[in-house]
């Protein structure tokens, strides 16, 4: 069977579900963050495959430019989020979500 758009979208959907499962089930803040990265990556895969199979060829690269921006935003988000986790760990000595139940530091 010839590989088309739907194959890539199915892979992207399963990867997104895997990342969502990680965010819901794992209780470690760092692993939850990695699962978040997995979900962002699955969105990137969907965008790139849409761009590849887009019917209007001159504008087909717009999806890839969007993926470029998503990668940049994800890098910024990871740096800020990890700094938050480190600051939280300094106060509470834990990166476990069940230990972080109050908003006051």
């Amino acid at each position: 069977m010839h590989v088309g758009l739907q194959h890539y979208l199915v892979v992207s959907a399963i990867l997104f579900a895997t990342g969502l499962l990680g965010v819901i089930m794992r209780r470690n803040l760092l692993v939850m963050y990695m699962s978040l990265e997995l979900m962002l990556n699955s969105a990137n895969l969907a965008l790139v495959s849409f761009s590849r199979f887009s019917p209007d060829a001159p504008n087909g690269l717009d999806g890839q430019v969007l993926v470029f921006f998503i990668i940049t935003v994800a890098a910024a988000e990871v740096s800020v989020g990890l700094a938050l986790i480190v600051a939280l760990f300094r106060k509470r000595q834990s990166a476990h979500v069940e230990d972080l139940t109050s908003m006051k530091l």
Partner: protein
Amino acid sequence: MINHMGLPDILFYVFAALTLFCGLLVVANPFSRSPVTSAMFLVLTIISMSGLFVLLHAFFLGIVQIIVYAGAVMVLFVFVIMLLDLKEEDRRRIKSFGLVAGLLSVGAILAIFLNSIISAAPPASAPAVEGDTHALGLLLYTKYTLPFEVISVLLLVAMIGVITLSKKDLK
């Protein structure tokens, strides 16, 4: 049906299986609950996904995926894991209610996704969209100049935020 499969199709199945397998091991590794193992499998996931990008003729994004994600972001993750002492994390158990609820909701979302993907009509043809560096860079500096500048400001803001957050006396 097997006879009609070319090399790109075979490579798609290989990379897709590798991506999904390693992605599952990031989230639910039966042998280790350590964040370091998850980070290493996330690196493998990202590398095999950049193989998928190359199969989609997005050559520039495939390289950027490896350099930025597997290079910079994952080094940041591993560095923070090393900075925090997370030895006691793997003793805790997952609650069964959370397991059932999580699996149910994720299964529902996956069913919605797959149903809409399967029922949608496939596109008529696949014109050759080449994501090489020249075309993408041209688009980035002509049509998307303003978002490009704004995103650099965003990186600057993130940098200032990180410096502020990692100061000793956080207020």
